[in-house]
């Protein structure tokens, strides 16, 4: 994985000093809250319901064990012993003190981590495929490109006060595991007809209150123009994105209002101009970064046999693993969705355990998934049983990846000041209901996603089943949505009809799954059946 050189370290250290100085000026009254807020947000510090919340960047989701141990230590030292892994592949802490935040950032910097640009109206943490560098189906490892973009976007002087937040994702396989087209810019690394590697740019996707799937703006940008083209995309947005209404300020609205062809034309014009400015990094820099992502020392000739004699292990191995490009290896997913637990939360102790296991079994590497789970990307198939036994012992062996128990849920009204309704208790009740009835396995792949308000942090628009918390005259109410997907077949879910109370929404989800079980044809997932039969049979069952 990428390691800092003295330049990277100096930048991050300077940022810590800068934040300490900003916090001092706030506490001394030299900065008002209105002036300080955008500064603390650009260091990931929110003010939430119960305290300050800190969002730490995990660039493209990749972590080593020293970093994970530090995240655990931070949970103990500055928070209340736990953290929350998010759909942005980051981690959030819920109980941070402003007066300690500088020390926390310094501790992070000591393991080459930071909270830079994890919030605010700037280019955010770059996300990527959580199986990058391991997946059998990838063209190349997308992370060197993500790292180059991370460096380019860090402290970019022109783009620190954009109309609104800006999220970039980079993938390099046809299977989309990063919701690429639901980002402000989604980049897919592709090969053109001449066999050269380059970037396809999708611009103007996003969730929030007006979800949009990003259209293709340019099908091939050569690697030695990646930064220049990105800069052109951003400059057009910075100048013309709406600033009169924060709900219309995302780039998706600009692309939509201009039309993708006109937006693309303006980018092209800016791009032509910028190409004369010499802002592109030397290709040698991409090559330097790529060396950090070279394969670890995989062994060859390893056994690919799995001993399936223990049925519990066999179930977990079937559910929670992903094929690896190297024979004899596999990617293993640690579910942070124990039935009845809080989706994405991990205690300091669990983080230490995961870090130790990564060191022992996965070349010291972990990935945070946007589904709020953790991947050990490079595990020997021969070690899988031992790994599973250790996970089981630590309560981390839940076999429910991509099932109805593997719910994405935002913090909701338990933590978030923008929420209408709680998300976590609904997730807990649904997972418990299906686990108790033993229906999880029968339902197969079913992606359920819950947001506590229209901002859609829980990706409800992109759930096979989505749930949206709304405020109904001061009480919590939940709308049901069906038919979303954030994979390569991206689609936006549709609302079924009137909302439900907390118990009602759990029943409603069960009714929707009953319709699926009754109507499904051979090999169909919930989403496939919904797409074939449409909304009506579901409405009938829910409201009929």
């Amino acid at each position, binding site marked *: 994985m990428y390691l800092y050189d003295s330049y990277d370290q100096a930048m991050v250290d300077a940022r810590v*000093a800068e934040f300490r100085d900003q916090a001092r*000026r706030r506490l001394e009254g030299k900065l008002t809250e209105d002036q300080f807020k955008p500064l603390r947000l650009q260091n990931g510090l929110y003010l939430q319901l119960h305290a300050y919340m800190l969002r730490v960047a995990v660039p493209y989701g990749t972590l080593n064990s020293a970093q994970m141990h530090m995240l655990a230590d931070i949970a103990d030292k500055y928070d209340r012993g736990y953290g929350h892994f998010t759909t942005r592949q980051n981690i959030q802490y819920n109980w941070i003190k402003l007066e300690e935040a500088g020390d926390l950032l310094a501790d992070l910097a000591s393991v080459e981590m930071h909270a830079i640009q994890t919030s605010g109206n700037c280019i955010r943490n770059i996300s990527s495929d959580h199986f990058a560098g391991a997946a059998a189906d990838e063209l190349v490892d997308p992370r060197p490109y993500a790292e180059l973009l991370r460096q*380019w976007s860090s402290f970019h002087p022109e783009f620190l006060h954009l109309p609104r937040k800006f999220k970039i994702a980079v993938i390099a396989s046809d299977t989309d595991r990063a919701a690429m087209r639901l980002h402000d810019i989604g980049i897919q690394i592709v090969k053109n007809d001449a066999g050269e590697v380059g970037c396809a740019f999708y611009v103007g996707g996003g969730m929030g209150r007006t979800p949009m799937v990003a259209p293709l703006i340019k099908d091939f940008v050569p690697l030695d123009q990646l930064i220049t083209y990105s800069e052109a995309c951003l400059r057009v947005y*910075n100048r013309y994105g709406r600033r009169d209404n924060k709900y219309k300020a995302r780039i998706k609205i600009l692309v939509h209002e201009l039309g993708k062809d006109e937006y693309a034309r303006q980018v092209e014009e800016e791009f032509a101009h910028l190409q004369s400015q010499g802002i592109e990094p030397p290709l040698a820099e991409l090559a330097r970064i790529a060396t950090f992502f070279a394969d670890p020392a995989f062994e060859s000739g390893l056994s690919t046999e799995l001993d399936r004699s223990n049925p519990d292990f066999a179930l977990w191995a079937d559910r929670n693993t992903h094929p690896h490009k190297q024979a004899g290896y596999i990617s293993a997913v640690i579910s942070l969705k124990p039935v009845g637990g809080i989706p994405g939360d991990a205690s300091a102790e669990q983080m230490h355990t995961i870090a130790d296991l990564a060191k022992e079994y996965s070349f010291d590497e972990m990935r945070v998934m946007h589904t709020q789970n953790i991947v050990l990307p490079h595990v020997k198939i021969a070690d899988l049983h031992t790994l599973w036994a250790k996970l089981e012992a630590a309560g981390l062996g839940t076999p429910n990846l991509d099932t109805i128990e593997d719910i994405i849920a935002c913090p909701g009204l338990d933590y978030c000041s923008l929420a209408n309704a709680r998300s976590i208790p609904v997730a807990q009740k649904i997972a418990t209901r299906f686990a108790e009835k033993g229906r999880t396995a029968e339902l197969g792949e079913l992606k359920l996603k819950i947001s506590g308000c229209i901002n859609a942090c829980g990706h409800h628009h992109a759930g096979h089943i989505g749930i949206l918390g709304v405020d109904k005259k001061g009480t919590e109410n939940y709308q049901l949505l069906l038919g979303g997907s954030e994979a390569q077949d991206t689609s936006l879910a549709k609302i079924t009809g009137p909302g439900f109370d907390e118990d009602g929404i759990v029943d409603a989800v069960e009714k929707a799954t009953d319709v699926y079980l009754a109507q499904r044809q051979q090999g169909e997932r919930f989403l496939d059946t919904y797409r074939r039969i449409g909304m009506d049979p579901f409405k009938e069952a829910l409201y009929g």
Partner: protein
Amino acid sequence: MADVLGTSPDEVQFRFRDDEVVDHGTVTVDSFLDQSNATAVRIEPGDDARALLPHLERIALVEVNFPSFMDGRGYSVARILREAGYQGELRAVGDVLIDQLLPMRRCGFDAFAPDQKLDEADAQAAFDRFPHAYQSASDARQPIWNLRHD
């Protein structure tokens, strides 16, 4: 803010040029384009800086107004002018605060006239904060990726 005494609203507090300060008033972009003799112009956030590009030769001062520090259009304005070869004074005016000084400087501003006078020591620390920069902009700094491959 701590110290608002002893300064008028558009007094230049920081200047990184040796030439004489331009002290004649600026005109709006629209009236600049109408008047063939104006040499100082003031750009508001919604103005298109590219309209000035044919006339850069005769401009000695461009003021870019930041009515709110949260409106970042002025950063692109500055770079567009510098990229087109503008050499005159580029002055940030309005809601200019300590923590925006360095990014503004990197985008090509070389004079700053904040609405409210800034603490000198805090401002100096902000200008000097980062030893390097990751990316190219409109200042003299070599980006880190060039330094790495010298």
